[in-house]
């Protein structure tokens, strides 16, 4: 059922999150907090080479070290057939995933795992890893995406042939896939343009920045029953991948979700769990593995970097008539960059009659990329939204006005095909235009930039159970790890549907044996999809509560109505009874039919897309190249905010990560293809003191598919910031930064080119 926005009592308020106290006082159990009797410590041996053939692995010395209980390498894992699947956040080949967890035949990047040990202490495990002898034949390597596309580039996979080209290639290539999207005829549109602009933009691979390193404890029993405790974005994803990679029946694996200290897409794959399973199976003991920060950087997936070539053609009045976008995206060592979404999102904000989009998924000697908030969209949008700003300056049109002129509306056909319906993009522009931020006057070396962004959001499979306890309190069990405050929103939706106070509902994230299948937490889907499951479960409970009240009153269930958490006779003909509260009905549940509970499993559809428009003010220190963010306003179509504070928090978090991506973050490789900055001292992320309070403006256009009108909110906030910051820098000092990050050294270099230093000039 749909709930009337005016009558909501819980949804739209700002209660304290149920998991908040535990997390603040350190009582929450994260992946590394789990211990078991007899537990061993696992450690991985990693490649020091970017690309090398494994000639031999000698583990004999390690095995003889006292305290070592098991050593594994690829030989201990089943050979997996090449098979595409969509278990995690994007298409994944199971064989590639297996090889990514444990190298077989070749290592493909610095940090690639080649063997692992389990020992009675972390120190012994570390010593044992050093005793494993790996003989390599070092091979030429390639890091840069365009270098990897060259015909003479070192080839990573001899069986990789470019998909999506005609005729089918006969030689292997690092270009895994070419995708295209076409609308109208770009060549015709380009001829109609009165103003054209062609630019090239680049960005580097960036880390999702989750604070908690990957960690797990795995126990394999003598009967083959496996239990996995790990920090991930989906316990069902962990179970599915481990079952496939170790050839275990899914029913024999129970995956327990630990609290998660950040994921942002980076924990939608497995790295450690299959290795710990193999070690536990071999040793007969539980095995714990916790990555160091360096291992997280070298051995797990960052977000892709890439190259974005943009052509825009417009009439003098600002109307876009043609656009071309070429996206070359890093996949890392195995195919599967988010090139499809990158292509579809970059120009989704605009109504353009003639569009050509081409994308390339390119492998190189880097860790396999993983998802990161709105995967692919921030990349291409940095290019397109920077180019829109350059076009606005050429046309001397206000950049927000240019976006307004060309904005996609209901009925607009997107370049990737769909005809938009019920979208709120224009409303975000309107709200930005009317925001006090735009009235603030700027000073010397200060500038203002705007940019917009789009992300799909998804629904998918979710399960939830609603149990009425004997005292009238309610337990909600859901199947999605809480990475952004979703426990609170689940409890709020259940409380609203049941008509009881929020604090009477306790939400719990269940393990894979305690709740039905739920697709992982990602794609901004949990409040939408799992929220629907929770609401429907609560509504089924209300139906049951009415039946139980009817049984107590000895009347027909149809003669009972439910209001504000109580059963009432529906009218005078139903009889005269005092209202029965949920608590009173729960107390008599045994006498009226037994426990009151309901479980719902759904495949939620119609998530409703996210749209955002951001405004950023910066000040440039011309001496150091430091960019100070003076003010930032992020306007977003959020459907209806279930918990406005946590929606604002998602927006503020996404913007912060986007600003880091814009200004400082990058994976830096040395001349041997080794990562030079695998840690937060050398990989500079923004901290609180770097930023002003980010003003999140919620535009609420309820999603008709959701009972409370919710849409996903967690991803689109990271889409506009890179271009918004670049556009603000251009406004401040007249320098267009087309390559990310716009770090102080790069900005200084650009300033030197604009105004040569006095010493150099002299």
């Amino acid at each position, binding site marked *: 059922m749909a709930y009337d926005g005016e009558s909501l009592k819980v949804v739209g308020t700002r209660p304290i999150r149920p998991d908040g106290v535990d997390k603040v006082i350190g009582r929450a159990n994260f992946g590394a907090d789990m211990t078991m009797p007899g537990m061993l410590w696992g450690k991985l041996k990693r490649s020091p080479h970017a690309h090398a053939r494994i000639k031999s692995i000698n583990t004999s010395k390690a095995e003889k070290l006292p305290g070592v209980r098991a050593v594994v390498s690829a030989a201990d894992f089943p050979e997996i057939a090449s098979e595409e699947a969509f278990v995690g956040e994007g298409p994944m080949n199971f064989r590639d995933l297996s090889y990514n967890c444990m190298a077989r035949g070749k290592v493909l990047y610095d940090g690639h795992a080649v063997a692992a040990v389990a020992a009675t202490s972390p120190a012994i495990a570390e010593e044992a890893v050093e005793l494993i002898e790996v003989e390599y034949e070092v091979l030429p390597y390639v890091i840069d995406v365009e270098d990897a596309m060259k015909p003479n580039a070192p080839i990573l996979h001899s069986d990789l042939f470019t998909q999506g080209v005609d005729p089918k290639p006969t030689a292997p290539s690092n270009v895994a896939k070419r995708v295209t999207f076409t609308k109208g005829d770009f060549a015709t549109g380009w001829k109609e343009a009165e103003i054209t602009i062609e630019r090239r933009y680049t960005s580097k691979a960036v880390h999702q920045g989750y604070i908690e390193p990957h960690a797990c404890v795995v126990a394999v029993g003598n009967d083959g029953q496996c239990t996995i405790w790990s920090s991930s974005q989906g316990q069902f994803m962990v179970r599915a991948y481990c079952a496939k990679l170790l050839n275990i029946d899914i029913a024999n694996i129970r995956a327990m979700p630990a609290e998660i200290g950040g994921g942002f897409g980076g924990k*939608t794959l497995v790295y450690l769990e299959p290795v710990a399973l193999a070690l536990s199976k071999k040793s007969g003991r539980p095995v714990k593995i916790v990555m160091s920060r360096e291992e997280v950087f070298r051995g797990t997936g960052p977000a892709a970097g890439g190259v974005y070539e943009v052509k825009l053609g417009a009439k003098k009045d600002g109307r876009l008539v043609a656009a071309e976008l070429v996206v070359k995206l890093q996949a890392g060592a195995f195919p599967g960059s988010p090139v499809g979404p990158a292509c*579809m999102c970059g120009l989704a904000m605009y109504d353009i009659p003639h569009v050509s989009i081409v994308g390339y998924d390119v492998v190189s000697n880097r860790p396999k990329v993983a998802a990161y908030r709105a995967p692919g969209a921030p990349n291409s949008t940095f290019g397109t939204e920077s180019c829109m700003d350059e076009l606005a300056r050429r046309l001397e049109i206000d950049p927000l006005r240019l976006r307004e002129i060309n904005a996609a509306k209901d009925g607009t056909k997107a370049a990737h095909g769909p*005809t938009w319906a019920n979208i709120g993009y224009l409303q975000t522009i309107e709200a930005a235009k009317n925001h006090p931020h735009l009235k603030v006057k700027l000073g010397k070396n200060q500038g203002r930039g705007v940019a917009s962004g789009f992300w799909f959001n998804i629904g998918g499979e979710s399960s939830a159970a609603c149990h009425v306890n004997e005292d009238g309190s309610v337990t909600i069990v859901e199947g999605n790890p809480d990475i952004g405050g979703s426990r609170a929103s689940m409890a709020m939706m259940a409380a609203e549907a049941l008509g009881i106070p929020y604090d009477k509902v306790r939400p719990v994230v269940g393990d894979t044996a305690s709740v039905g299948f739920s697709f992982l937490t990602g794609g901004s889907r949990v409040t939408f999809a799992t929220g629907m499951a929770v609401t429907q479960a609560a509504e089924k409970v209300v139906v049951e509560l009415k039946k139980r009240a009817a049984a107590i009153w000895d009347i027909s269930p149809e003669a009972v109505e439910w209001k504000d958490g109580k059963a009432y006779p529906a009218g005078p003909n139903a009889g005269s009874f005092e209202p029965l509260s949920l608590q009173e009905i729960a107390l008599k549940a045994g006498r009226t039919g037994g426990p009151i509970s309901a479980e719902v499993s759904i495949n939620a559809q119609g998530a409703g897309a996210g749209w955002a428009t951001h405004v950023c003010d910066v000040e440039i220190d011309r001496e150091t190249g430091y960019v100070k963010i003076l003010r930032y306003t992020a306007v977003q179509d959020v459907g209806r905010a279930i918990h406005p504070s946590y929606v604002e928090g998602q927006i503020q978090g996404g913007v912060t990560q986007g600003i880091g991506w814009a200004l400082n973050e990058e994976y830096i490789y040395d001349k041997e293809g080794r990562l030079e900055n695998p840690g937060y001292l050398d990989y500079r992320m923004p901290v609180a003191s770097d930023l002003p309070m980010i003003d999140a403006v919620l535009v609420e256009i309820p999603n008709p598919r959701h009972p409370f009108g919710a849409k996903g909110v967690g991803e689109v906030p990271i889409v506009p910031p890179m271009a918004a910051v670049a556009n603000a820098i251009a406004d401040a000092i007249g320098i267009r930064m087309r390559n990310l990050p716009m770090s102080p050294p790069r900005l200084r270099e650009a300033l030197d080119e604009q105004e040569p230093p006095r010493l150099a000039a002299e």
Partner: protein
Amino acid sequence: MPKVVITGTAARRFTGGQTEVEVEANTVRRMITELDRRFPGLGHQIDEGMAVAINGEIFQDAYQTPLEPDSEVVLIPKIGGG
């Protein structure tokens, strides 16, 4: 009959470049079956790697979703997220 629009190469390689197809189908499942009959392999491609946008609204893995005679169905790559 519902109109299926194919803008990307992932699906177009099965249709010989054809970008619009009318199909006799009243559910997504029937549409996939019909497309696979006419373009062998396309059904598997949709099942494993594609979503459908029906009149602008995205559906993934939703066989029972009804189609109307005037529905516009666009095949797009499956969407994940972070």
